[in-house]
């Protein structure tokens, strides 16, 4: 399955990643947080898993 993302999903990712980026002590989500974020948005599977070894170490 091609890893396609709808505009609504992309907006959810954009706000989760960046809505606090201009604030002090802002940071990227950790890999485990990313897993949860992608799952909530409906993006699941090895492709979206930042800790998966399915595509090589």
């Amino acid at each position, binding site marked *: 399955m*091609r*890893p*396609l*993302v*709808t*505009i*609504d*999903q*992309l*907006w959810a*990712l*954009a*706000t989760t*990643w*960046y*809505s606090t*980026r*201009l604030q*002090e002590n*802002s*940071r*990227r989500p950790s890999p485990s947080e*990313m897993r949860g974020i*992608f799952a909530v948005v409906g993006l699941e599977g*090895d*492709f*979206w*898993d*930042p*800790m*998966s*070894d*399915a*595509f*090589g170490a």
Partner: protein
Amino acid sequence: MAVYGHFAQTGQRPTPEDVLRRTGTGGVESVLAAYQALRAQRVLVLEDDVAAIRMAPPFSGIPTQHVVEAGGVQYHANCAWDALGIPAALHRAGTVRSRCEQSGEPFHLRVGLEGPDASGWLFHCLVPAKKWWDDIVFT
């Protein structure tokens, strides 16, 4: 904060001297040291000279095809995700102009404070999540 504040206000990447003017403390060496710390946190991507900022996601330090206008300022984003990330970071409505990499069709999307207009466009992610930072510029 100084780096991101500069991007937000101007749409352009700051030089180390610009950052120094905003922080008002230390020297250029301290700015470059801070760049390294931010790079390690993956919130800054530097050019090979380690002094020029290539990316401060969602902002691009160089012109790209993903152009965002918000509040009378023009910004460049690193990718489609970041193009929506700029209005999200600024908490401002804006417009995104880009193109489909497959067909070349122009892309124009209005983004309000609550999100973008309804759209059938799709974002095709080429690189699996674990590999994104192997080459974040390509990703």
